[in-house]
């Protein structure tokens, strides 16, 4: 097994060209299943393979894993829908906009990106002025902070773009309540009102919720991935690929994406998202988009370093996809995410606290 060649792109290649799986041997199917489980993309893989009618060529045990994953994903979607119903009842009386983010948004919009997705938590965005009321109503309804140390409290309240994660006392669902899309300590002070202005009310159930405008949704998703730790990098990139593929049918989407990314000063992560999505998933992107973003997308790191880092950090976290340097690449991505999120003195303080004092 260690003597076999690595297949770092087996999963992404199969997701964008499922027909090639017809020729896979047993070992490739084993790896495809392992990599997709590690990357949390197994149910999406099941969907793609079954729509391309190649599931029948999979060995029976591989098919079994994929089918189980699809059942689990359906349960996840049911659970999130149920949770959104509860949240609506809790927050509707406040009469404030509640913007669903990431997975919950894709699901509520009925977007393809929600299909087969596993949900680990629910993310919402509310106006900062409404935060206090939202928190109180959530507390009354049984949502309590997951972390309760004074340091965690300070970390979230003073430095982050969200309050400490909440967990429901009975259902154990985790809820992240955001007031903007990037930590203020990152140096990007994103005006959340500008996002709220363009957000779209959902006309289907659950009615009180809104979602970000398509360009803002892509910007947020790109920031989340490319300022983050690449913990579920490939899954997040696949979300982006699906978002881009879906929104590209909307008139004016690409121009608005360029305009928004540039005006928010977020051309770099958006360009990274487009380039990586095209590299791994062959996303169709008009040529002018990358050309127009490039002048604003500056970085102190040479392109070759960035490409190397993204190549490793976006592999499925499985031995059959990662080489000797992949663990190092992942570690660098982790360091980089903290570097981008906090100024150096604060970062030094935070990391020393976590290393020395945190329980």
């Amino acid at each position, binding site marked *: *097994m260690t003597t076999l060649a690595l297949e770092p792109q087996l999963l992404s290649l199969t997701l964008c060209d499922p027909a090639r799986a017809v020729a896979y041997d*047993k070992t490739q*199917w*084993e790896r495809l*299943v*392992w990599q997709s*489980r*590690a990357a949390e993309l197994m149910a999406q893989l099941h969907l793609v393979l079954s729509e391309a009618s190649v599931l029948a060529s999979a*060995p*029976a*045990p*591989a098919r*079994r*894993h994929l*089918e*189980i994953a699809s*059942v*689990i994903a359906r*349960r996840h979607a*049911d659970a999130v829908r149920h949770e959104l119903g509860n949240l609506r009842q809790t927050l509707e009386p406040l009469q404030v906009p509640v913007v669903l983010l990431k997975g919950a948004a894709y699901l509520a919009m009925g977007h393809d990106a929600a299909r087969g997705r596993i949900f680990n938590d629910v993310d919402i965005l509310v106006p900062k002025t409404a935060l206090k009321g939202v928190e109180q109503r959530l507390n009354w309804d049984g949502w309590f902070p997951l972390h309760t140390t004074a340091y965690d409290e300070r970390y979230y309240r003073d430095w982050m773009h969200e309050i400490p994660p909440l967990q429901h006392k009975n259902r154990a669902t985790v809820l992240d309540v955001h007031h903007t899309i990037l930590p203020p300590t990152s140096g990007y002070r994103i005006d959340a009102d500008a996002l709220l202005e363009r957000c779209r009310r959902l006309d289907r159930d659950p009615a009180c919720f809104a979602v970000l405008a398509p360009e803002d949704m892509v910007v947020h998703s790109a920031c989340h991935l490319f300022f983050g730790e690449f913990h579920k990098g490939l899954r997040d990139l696949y979300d982006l690929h699906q978002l881009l593929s879906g929104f590209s049918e909307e008139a004016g989407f690409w121009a608005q994406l360029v305009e928004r990314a540039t005006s928010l000063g977020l051309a770099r992560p958006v360009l990274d998202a487009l380039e990586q999505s095209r590299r791994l998933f062959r996303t169709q992107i008009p040529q002018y988009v990358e050309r127009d973003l490039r002048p604003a997308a500056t970085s102190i790191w040479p392109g070759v370093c960035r490409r190397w880092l993204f190549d490793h950090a976006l592999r499925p*976290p*499985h*031995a059959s996809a990662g080489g000797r340097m992949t663990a190092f690449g992942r570690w660098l991505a982790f360091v980089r995410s903290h570097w981008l999120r906090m100024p150096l003195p604060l970062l030094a303080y935070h990391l020393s606290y976590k290393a020395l004092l945190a329980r």
Partner: protein
Amino acid sequence: MRARLVGSGLVVPCGSFAVAIRSRLQAVHRGLGQLYADFPVFDRSRTYVDFEVEIDAPFGLRSLVRPQAILRCDGRAPFKPLPASQAMAMLEWGLNWVISSHSHDHLVLHAAAVERSGRALVLAADPGSGKSTLCAALVHRGWRLLSDKLALVSLQDGRIRPIARPISLKNASIGVVRALGADIVIGDVCRDTAKGDVAHMKPPSASVQAMDRPAAPAMLVFPRYRAGGQLVSRAEGRGRALIELTRHAFNASVLAGEGFEALCDLVASARPHRIEYGSFDQVLPEIDRLWSRVA
């Protein structure tokens, strides 16, 4: 076996999966030799391997001072590292984790199951109730071991799929089971684990050989051992049994309605009983008596 363990992996059945085990740890080699001697070994190149499980010493300076073992499955480490002396117990827990976290085409119950004349007796109880010890005693008396920890109830037909892996014993029960007879084989004792002293009993070879024969549940017992206690045996209501079993189902939330139906079918087909006992002499004849009425 050793060559496979340090090479491409020793592929053995694990519930409804084929698992490739790799390890360089002597304790694991010895443990597998003691407990899995009757297990079929599959050809790695021809068998579809569902999971790769590795248990080895983690890298780092700590290994010089205090040797540890870490278990990885497909790149994930489900548990924190443990002292190297607990490696075999950790491997068993890891294999249980593989089954309970991925067998979602079955209802996975935290229960023991044994078979006689084609039908299954399910023993469900909280940890520490003496379930595994009772299971070992029944197996020693000729019942076929289906599983001592995880009863896999098929969502297709309600039958219980055998696992037939070693029976896990804790603390005083290790001596109790050893005393059952000279034919009982028990592996090395792992001391001071999170669950106290832990050792595993080798499954009878007849149970291992019958691993592909599932059995329909006929009786459900909630056993409870009380030191020095008297025998108290009574039929349990199916509704109560259902509620209690829900607590013992690992994947009820994943299976949702389908899981609930499987639980209902189980309590409908297996007559529930509650038995408290203070010795094997009380409980074993009582189970025989109850069994003669259902079988």
